C-alpha cells in the first residue's frame, strides 16, 4: 500500500469514526428525550386509587370547602396545636379532627421512614391547617411497621403517649428526630427523653414500655394495613381511596373535593 493510499484510507476511517461517534451521541440524546417525553405522557398521575364501592358520602354544601390558596406552612412543631387553630376537642388518641368530619384520612406510617418524616413536617401540617382545623377532615394515624424492631418500639412509645392524651406532640417530635431507616439509632433512652420533653407521666410511660402493653395495638394497625393491600409507607386512605408516597396537598384537595361534591368516595 502506497503511503498516499494509506493516508487516504486512514483519513476516511477517522472521519467515519468521528461522524459515527457524533451521530451516536445525537441518537442517544434523541432517544433519551423520546423516553422522557413518553414517560411524561404515560405516567399514572393519579395519586389515589378509586375508592371501594359503597363508601359514598352524601354531598354537602360546597361552602364548607375551605380555600387551599394559602402558602404551605412547613414549620414543624412539637406541640399539638401550635397556633391554636385546632379545637382541643378534636384531639382523641391517635386521631385529630371533628368526629362529624365528612372526610377521614388515615395515614399508615413508620417513624423511621424518611418520606413519612418529610410528610409530617410539610403536607401534614398543611392538611391540619386547611382541612382539620376547619372540620372537613378527621386525620387518623396508624402504624405500619416496615423497618423492624426499632420502628415497633417507637410506635409503642407513641401509643403510650396517646394513652396520656399526648400522642400528637410525641408523634411530631419522633418524626422531627428523623431516626434513620437503616442505622440502629432508636433506643428506649431516646424515647424516654422525648417523653420527658412532651411532659408524660414517666412512671406510666415506662410501665407501658416495659410491659409491651401497646404491642398488640401496633400489630393490629399493621395487620389492618396489610389487609388493605398496603405495601409501603406512607400510604393514605381518604374515605377508602388509597394514595402512596409523599402525596402533595393538591392531590389531597382533588380527592377531598370529589368527596365533598358527592362524586368521589
Amino acid at each position, binding site marked *: 500500500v502506497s503511503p498516499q493510499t*494509506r493516508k487516504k*484510507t486512514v483519513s476516511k476511517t477517522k472521519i467515519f469514526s468521528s461522524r459515527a461517534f457524533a451521530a451516536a451521541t445525537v*441518537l*442517544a440524546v434523541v*432517544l433519551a428525550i423520546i423516553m422522557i417525553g413518553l*414517560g411524561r405522557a404515560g405516567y399514572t398521575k393519579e395519586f389515589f386509587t378509586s375508592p371501594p364501592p359503597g363508601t359514598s358520602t352524601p354531598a354537602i354544601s360546597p361552602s364548607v370547602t375551605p380555600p387551599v390558596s394559602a402558602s404551605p406552612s412547613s414549620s414543624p412543631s412539637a406541640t399539638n396545636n401550635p397556633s391554636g387553630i385546632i379545637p382541643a376537642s378534636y384531639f382523641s388518641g391517635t386521631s385529630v379532627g371533628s368526629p362529624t368530619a365528612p372526610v377521614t384520612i388515615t395515614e399508615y406510617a413508620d417513624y423511621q421512614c424518611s*418520606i413519612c418524616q418529610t410528610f409530617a413536617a410539610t403536607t401534614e401540617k398543611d392538611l391540619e391547617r386547611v382541612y382539620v382545623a376547619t372540620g372537613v377532615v378527621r386525620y387518623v394515624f396508624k402504624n405500619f411497621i416496615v423497618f423492624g424492631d426499632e420502628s415497633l418500639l417507637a410506635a409503642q412509645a407513641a401509643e403510650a403517649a396517646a394513652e396520656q392524651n399526648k400522642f400528637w406532640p410525641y408523634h411530631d417530635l419522633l418524626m422531627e428526630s428523623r431516626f434513620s431507616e437503616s442505622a440502629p439509632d432508636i433506643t428506649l433512652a431516646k424515647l424516654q427523653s422525648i417523653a420527658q420533653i412532651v411532659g408524660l407521666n414517666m412512671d406510666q410511660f415506662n410501665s407501658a414500655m416495659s410491659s409491651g402493653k401497646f404491642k398488640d395495638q401496633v400489630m393490629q394497625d399493621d395487620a389492618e394495613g396489610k389487609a388493605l393491600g398496603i405495601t*409501603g409507607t406512607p400510604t393514605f386512605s381518604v374515605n377508602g381511596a388509597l394514595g402512596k408516597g*409523599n402525596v402533595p396537598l393538591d392531590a389531597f384537595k382533588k380527592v377531598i373535593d370529589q368527596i365533598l361534591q358527592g362524586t368521589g368516595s
Partner: protein
Amino acid sequence: LKAKSKVVTPVSMARPGRGLQIAIPLLAIVGMAISGYLTYLHYATVSAVCLPFMECDVVLSSPYSVMWGVPLSLFGMVVYAFITGLGIWQLRAKNEGKSLAALLIYVMALSGIIFTVYLYYLEIFVIHDF
C-alpha cells in the same frame, strides 16, 4: 489484506479494552438482577422489603414509577438485557462488528444516563425523597 487491516485500525482504537469488554456484560447482568428485584418489589403483595443500601419503596410505589402501566424497573431490565446482548456480541464479533457493538452500547448507555438524571430530578424535586 494489509490495506484492510490498516483501515480498521483507527476504528478499533475507539473500542474499549478487553477488560472493559468483559466488564460491560457482567455489569449489565448485575443491572438486570437489580431491576428484576425492583420489578418484583413493585408487583409484590407482601410488605415492602428494603435493602440496606436503599431507601424504602416509596419511590418505587410513587405514580412516577409507572409508565403506561408498566413499572420503570421493567424497562430498565429490558435495556440491561439489550446491553448484555450487545456486550456478548462485542466480545465475540470481529473488527467492524465489534466497533458497531461498542457504538450501540454507547448509545444505550448514554441515553440511559440522561434518562436516569431525569429520574433523579423527579426523585429529589418532585417526590422529595432525598
